[in-house]
């Protein structure tokens, strides 16, 4: 029997969703200040409207949903996915008011892409958008990478046992510190330190490349946000191809690989446990799959004689593959070059790298390295069992912060989420193919959306079918929240309608 949620359930969900949306409104003050600083008055008014709309929603729901009840697990999941839904709808206002979007659906696509750190976009004439709007695009992806609920936890929740349930609902389950609010603040401490250093390096490099100081540091900040969050947004339509510099690319690679690592590993490194990077199952899994995919594409493109020398070949292949594998989405080639220069093998291997994705509890998406590690270990365990005497007990363990013995439950959990991702990838690829796109291109684009990567082979366009925009938007949302929170929201909706 489905139990219909009671009034108290609605109130607690409304109250905490309102808090998160107030956080989104406060976040918009940064692009507002940027617009004012650059005298972009029309854009500034757009942000005032959007901030006010967030405050109306946030204060309105908090005033209406007055309750002392704390969050349960199901509430936490619904608040997380519901907050993302409303944060997307309201966060899209500046995009829509700018006049650069073809429809509100396009703006929802862009904002969901930002929050989920995907990096696909439908905004048109990007090369003429205001600095304020560019700041918002990149801030969305930077904040989304840490988790918008993490922002609210950090600044707006003052110690509640239920906070952890919202935090988990956003696809994160690592407790770096005993208290979840402290954990959220620790995530911000790590991220802001990287922000300062990354922007400095990129800004200085930009000036060395011939950029003016303001533009170099502003673009350095935005490129950092796109890299660290593994978002892939860039201030120009040319993405990081704009800079034509191996030094800039190296800095970007360092930042987006670091951004793709688990926050728990960052915290271990931060607190002096340097050996964690060598021992962690996720980093081992990442470096193995990155090496294999890079070697395969390098071999095939060398055969096809696409690039003029070995250095160019390696530079292009490694950058795109590292970007794909960390689910960043930065590129130094044109979108259509994946089709016209890389061909089917390049497309398929890049798709595999995106599908595997980054680390759990990071800013990245995809199936995640830890699941690949667990499934690989389980496979090894099964093979060892087959070749060992029946009476022997074969155990496998993996290292992630601490050593953990492999259990059937753990493997089943990893397999369930992996199958869910593969199903989602498959459904989207078939829908794309039904619209007439070649299957490998449709698969590339859908995997890119659902793994929150953001590379495109040219299917994502402002004039692509609306249904495909909806499919990719839902794919980004499901992929980022790792299904459970969205399923909980759907279940909540069903319970409201059909519960007793």
């Amino acid at each position, binding site marked *: 029997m489905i139990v219909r949620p009671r009034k108290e359930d609605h109130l607690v969900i409304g109250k905490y969703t309102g808090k998160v949306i107030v956080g989104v409104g406060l976040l918009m003050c940064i692009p507002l200040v940027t617009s004012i600083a650059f005298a972009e008055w029309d854009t500034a008014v757009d942000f005032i409207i959007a901030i*006010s709309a967030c*405050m109306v929603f946030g204060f309105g729901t908090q005033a209406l949903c007055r309750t*002392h009840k704390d969050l349960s697990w199901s509430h936490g999941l619904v608040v997380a996915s519901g907050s993302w839904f409303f944060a997307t709808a309201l966060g899209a206002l500046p995009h829509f008011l700018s006049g650069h979007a073809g429809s509100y659906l396009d703006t929802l696509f862009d904002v969901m892409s930002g929050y989920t750190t995907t990096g696909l976009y439908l905004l048109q004439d990007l090369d003429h958008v205001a600095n304020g709007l560019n700041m918002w695009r990149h801030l969305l992806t930077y904040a989304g990478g840490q988790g918008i609920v993490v922002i609210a936890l950090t600044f707006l929740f003052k110690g509640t046992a239920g906070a952890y349930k919202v935090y988990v609902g956003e696809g994160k389950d690592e407790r770096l510190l005993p208290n979840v609010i402290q954990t959220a603040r620790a995530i911000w401490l790590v991220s802001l330190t990287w922000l300062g250093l990354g922007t400095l390096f990129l800004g200085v490099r930009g000036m060395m490349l011939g950029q003016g100081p303001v533009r170099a540091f502003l673009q350095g900040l935005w490129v950092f946000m796109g890299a660290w969050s593994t978002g892939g947004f860039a201030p120009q339509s040319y993405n990081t191809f704009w800079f034509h510099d191996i030094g800039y690319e190296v800095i970007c690679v360092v930042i987006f690989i670091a951004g793709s690592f688990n926050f728990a590993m960052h915290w271990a490194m931060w607190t002096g446990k340097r050996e964690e990077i060598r021992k962690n199952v996720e980093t081992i899994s990442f470096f193995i799959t990155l090496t294999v995919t890079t070697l395969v594409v390098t071999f095939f493109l060398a055969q096809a004689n*696409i690039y003029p020398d070995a250095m160019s070949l390696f530079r292009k292949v490694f950058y795109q593959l590292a970007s794909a594998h960390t689910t960043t989405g930065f590129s130094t*080639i044109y979108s259509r070059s994946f089709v016209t220069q890389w061909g089917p093998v390049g497309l398929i291997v890049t798709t595999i790298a995106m599908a595997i994705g980054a680390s759990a509890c990071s800013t990245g998406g995809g199936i995640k390295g830890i699941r690949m590690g667990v499934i690989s270990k389980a496979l090894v365990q099964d093979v060892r069992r087959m070749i060992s005497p029946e009476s022997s007990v074969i155990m496998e363990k993996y290292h992630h912060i601490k050593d953990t013995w492999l259990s059937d439950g753990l493997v089943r959990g990893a397999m369930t989420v992996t199958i869910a991702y593969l199903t989602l990838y498959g459904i989207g690829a078939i829908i794309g193919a039904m619209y007439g796109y070649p299957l490998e291109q449709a698969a590339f684009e859908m995997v890119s959306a659902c793994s929150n990567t953001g590379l495109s082979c040219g299917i994502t366009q402002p004039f692509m079918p609306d249904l495909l925009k909806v499919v990719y938007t839902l794919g980004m949302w499901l992929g980022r929240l790792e299904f459970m929170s969205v399923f909980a929201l759907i279940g909540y909706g069903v319970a409201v309608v059909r519960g007793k």
Partner: protein
Amino acid sequence: MRNRLVPGMLLVTMLFALAAAPAMAADAPIPPNNPTSTQLVNTQNVPGDITKGLFWNGKTVTFHGEAIGEVMVRGDYAWIHLNDDAYMEKNVEEGATLAGYNSGMAIWVPAELTKQIDTYGDYKHEGTIVEITGVFNAACKEHGGDMDIHATSLRIIRPGHLVVDPIAPWKVWLALALIALAFGLWRLDRMTRNRISPHRGV
């Protein structure tokens, strides 16, 4: 008197037409590139076969577009980016119809030539429209495999200009109404919180 008036009016009309002619010519639509940036990226020698390379690779092309962003000078040469998209002559802030993404080409050009470019396109500027002639590289050996054009000549087709994005009055009214509503709800939230909840700041 009448005999003088008619030739006089004709003369004035002719002078006006002559004065307006350059401006009218400047506003005449610029024909599309042949090849466009999209064609440069997409056209393969043998469709579907990457091993046969791109059709325009190594060929000399004449290409024009809006200079966008900035010039990045690297020694005697510089990078500029020319967009030959739907926003080349008029951008969204000036009322251009939305027509898809930006598209363009990276150009490696002697730095001296870029001094002719007065404006680079951004939110507040429509960039100078520039025509270059040079060799298209599908994967440039000199630049780490980047797709680019090495230009040997550059000429200005149309100078850039400032772009004004005026504030729409309805936006101001909407903003004021929402601010008032948000403030009212904030006050209501504070008042009801004080009245109902003993746990302030939860």
